């Protein structure tokens, strides 16, 4: 069977710069891959290119095959069929990931209804409401009935991120892309969200592309990693090997920075 996501020689260019440089990666169904690198290394652009959602000023070249279909150069109309079925994204910043003027329940309901209609089993009325609540329970949102009626600004950061995750899994994607889903959260909430993602990915047998600059976090969530530096993949392999025997100086510097940070945290306790 062909891989779920197969990126070959992907480059992303702006008018003046090469932002992602001939990147290749493969992700099978049910696999979990980490994409790590410092801020500005091109992680988010890779995720957007994989779904054909790059900003108008950016151009992708090379090949991205999502569920066997070519994404680079494909028409929006063809991609719409693929999106929300093959792939969904959870974004970095939970504040801008939710529409500030729409009730939370409706934001989950929209992708849910769309997915159901496409599968030829349209949901509406009470069945749809019940499905929304079921997903909210699944992502462990407390008091789902009340939260469904709330606006995003009435929720905590962790709750907002749970809503964003609920919106993504409402699409029942084969691949979930999580773009630094915990960066904006405090450490305790971070751990909760990671545990939730881990459970959902296993329960629903989704593949996971986990994007982060936080090495320990990545290590706990995925099996394989790719290290990205200024748009170039400098290293890749199983998590354990990359972390125990980093082959590239950049990976080593990322690791030692993370260790120093951990040591500093422990020293304070």
């Amino acid at each position, binding site marked *: 069977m062909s891989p779920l996501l197969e990126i070959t020689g992907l480059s992303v260019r702006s008018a003046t710069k090469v932002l992602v440089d001939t990147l290749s990666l493969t992700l099978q169904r049910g696999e979990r891959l980490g994409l790590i690198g410092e801020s500005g290394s091109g992680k988010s652009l890779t995720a957007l290119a994989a779904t054909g*959602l790059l900003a108008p000023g950016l151009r992708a070249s090379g090949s991205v095959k999502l569920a066997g279909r070519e994404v680079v150069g494909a028409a929006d109309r063809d991609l719409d069929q693929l999106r929300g079925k093959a792939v969904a994204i959870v*974004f970095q910043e939970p504040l*801008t990931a939710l529409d500030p003027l729409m009730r939370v329940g409706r934001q989950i309901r*929209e992708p849910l209804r769309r997915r159901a209609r496409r599968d030829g089993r349209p949901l509406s009325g009470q069945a749809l409401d019940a499905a929304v609540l079921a997903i909210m329970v699944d992502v462990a949102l*407390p008091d789902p009935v009340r939260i469904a009626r709330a*606006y995003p600004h009435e929720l*905590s950061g*962790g709750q907002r991120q749970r809503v964003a995750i609920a919106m*993504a899994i409402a*699409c029942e994607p084969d691949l979930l892309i999580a773009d630094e889903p915990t960066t904006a959260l405090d450490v305790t909430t971070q751990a909760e969200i990671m545990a939730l993602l881990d459970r959902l990915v296993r329960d629903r047998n989704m593949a996971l592309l986990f994007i982060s600059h936080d090495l320990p976090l990545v290590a706990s969530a995925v099996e394989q990693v790719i290290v990205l530096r200024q748009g170039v993949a400098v290293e890749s392999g199983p998590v354990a090997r990359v972390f125990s025997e980093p082959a590239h100086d950049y990976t080593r510097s990322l690791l030692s920075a993370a260790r120093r940070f951990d040591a500093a945290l422990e020293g304070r306790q």
Partner: protein
Amino acid sequence: MSDVAASPNRRRGIVSLTLMAGIMLVGLHIAIGLLTLVWLPYEPNAFTGGRLEGASLAHWVGTDRLGRDLFTQLMIGSRIALTVGLGAVAIGATIGVSIGILAAFASRWLDDALAATLDILIAFPTLLIAMLVVAASDTASLGSAIVALGIALSAIVARLTRILAKRVLVMDYITAARTSGSSWPKIVAIHVLPNIWPTLSVNFALQFGLAVIAEASLSYLGLGAPPPNASWGRMLQEAQGTVYTAPLGAIAPGIALVSLAIGVNLLADGLRARIDAARTLS
């Protein structure tokens, strides 16, 4: 994890003094405008008193140089001003929002071309554009004044819509909607328009004020509604020759015009304050 915080009702509680004053002034004109549909003190074109009479119990703000009741004309003026304001804003909003959304989605060069065109149009005074449009349609009527002002306002609305829509379109929730396969028309309807509406509505109130003043100017220049319609602008123009002997004829429509313009601006300011307060809450 914290609980669900403030209830959305709290936002609705913020009705400032400014907003109240605006609502009252505009409401007064609306009430008068509606009243003229069913009742007037006098036949508007009947000669019901002496020429250029001062204020009296029979004629609250006197009569004009033909002996017609000025208060009756003022009341009709309210209706005309509101009609023109509403009509012009409705036309300006429809054209402007459509073009603005189109520009926000357009390819780079079409967007640049639209943006430049709008900037050039906005550089011309609203009144000048309106005069050109009226001149192009050979008979001056209430309808042509409304269309002219609506077209003149649409450029301003289009530019604002374009900027606001672009700001919304880069938000992650738009990309999220796209990844879940939502279509552009649907995204415009459920995400873009609701999110730009608060700022647009304040702008529409300001445009309304502009349209009311511009209509008075058009009428003053003889390009507005023709004679049987008593527009404040035409009342001002007719009172011009007798402003020293019968000042009320000029003062009264002046006050009517200014009070509506101020009312609309207060309303816009109050709305803006309310929206800002709601934003900081979120």
